[in-house]
């Protein structure tokens, strides 16, 4: 029920938007994420965008994970102080 998948915003028209999810395009509502822009990735749940995915946070997480073996990333990954 809480399933949500990342979708790429292709166009926005008022509260409607076209998203691409795994190569398939569909129209969704952006009533819950009114500030969304073309090129953003959103989490799509039952036909609505429920949140905008933060690319910088995603890249930072992947960077920290790749540094895990060196030990310096542990505090950022596993404590509440590591994230904004």
């Amino acid at each position, binding site marked *: 029920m*809480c399933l949500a998948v990342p979708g790429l915003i292709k166009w926005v028209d008022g509260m409607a938007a076209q998203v691409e999810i795994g190569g398939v395009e569909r129209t969704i509502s952006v009533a819950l994420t009114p500030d969304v822009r073309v090129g953003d990735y959103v989490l799509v749940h*039952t*036909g609505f965008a429920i*949140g905008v995915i933060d*690319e910088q946070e995603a890249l930072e*997480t992947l960077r920290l994970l790749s540094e895990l073996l060196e030990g310096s990333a542990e505090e950022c990954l*596993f404590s*509440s102080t*590591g994230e904004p």
Partner: protein
Amino acid sequence: MRYLDEFRDPQLARRLLDHIWARSTRRVCLMEFCGGHTHAIFRHGLRQMLPPTVELRSGPGCPVCVTADRDLDRAIAIARLPNVILTTFGDMLKVPGSSGSLQEARAEGADVRIVYSTLDALQIAREHPDRDVVFLGIGFETTAPTVAAALLQAEAEGIRRFYVLSLHKLTPPAMRAILDSGQVGLGGIIGPGHVTTVVGSAAWEFLPREYHMPCAVAGFEPLDILRAVAALVEMAEEGRAEVVNAYSRSVRPQGNPVALAMMERVFAVDRADWRGLGSVPQSGLTLRPAYARFDAALAFPVETGPSRPHPGCRCGDVVRGVLDPPDCPLFRRVCTPARPVGPCMVSAEGACAAWYTYGQDDEDG
């Protein structure tokens, strides 16, 4: 970046697993609140990769599973009323109530339609102005704002005969009820990533503050889940309790304020009945008086009589985390996805369905 493959990287997963194996010395039982996590954990085989010190237990995070028998019976009774079109998410169709399921009601002539979105239900209402279109509102904070948005849309368009039977539930009070019961010895909570995208990670701060319970909010890819498990193991080893946001690309401390405001505008918080947890204060959403004319509970006051749950079904214990599905005497022998006895075997988020589809029965010993 597509936000999928990158978070399934096997090398990074191996590093996280190595870290968990190196750090975990003491036994810890973690509850994944969300049924979506349960299925992801099974699908990616994560249980078998974790050290024996780390136990994972499914929680109540499956809206279909926690819907009380009486509420399901009401929905079925409304579906059977003349002139009603009952719209619902697919998972609800096969859940057995006291006398049959929505699917059986449909076979007997009730107009029950599966929708993907509340907007589809609204479209049916537009196309059938002479019918009463009822949306069966189940789901947590992830789904409730979408129902609020559809209802506000119906109001704006002047759609008169669109109704919501609100069985929506709130997740933090359920977590509190489980911890207050003291029946499960938990050492950490894997927080639901999509609920928390809406409510914000701050909504879980009561766990460390009031229960000294660590919580790590997780996404649904293997790296997300392993990162949360690693954080919880780390905290258990150090005796530390915090809320760690292990899904920071989607979850912010204050959540999605627009979605929360829309939910707040349409719904009031009230007591709700949960399968397995009983009546939990401040854990459900009912329509505010200003939206009473959309309320199916008021428009269609049906009498259902006492509910008659299947005597052997242990779904209530499964959603509380007291019982693993293979320990239910009905599991796989009597209760299967083709002939489910309880909702946990029906839903795509149900723990029994996950164990049935992916689990090895002998894994449990």
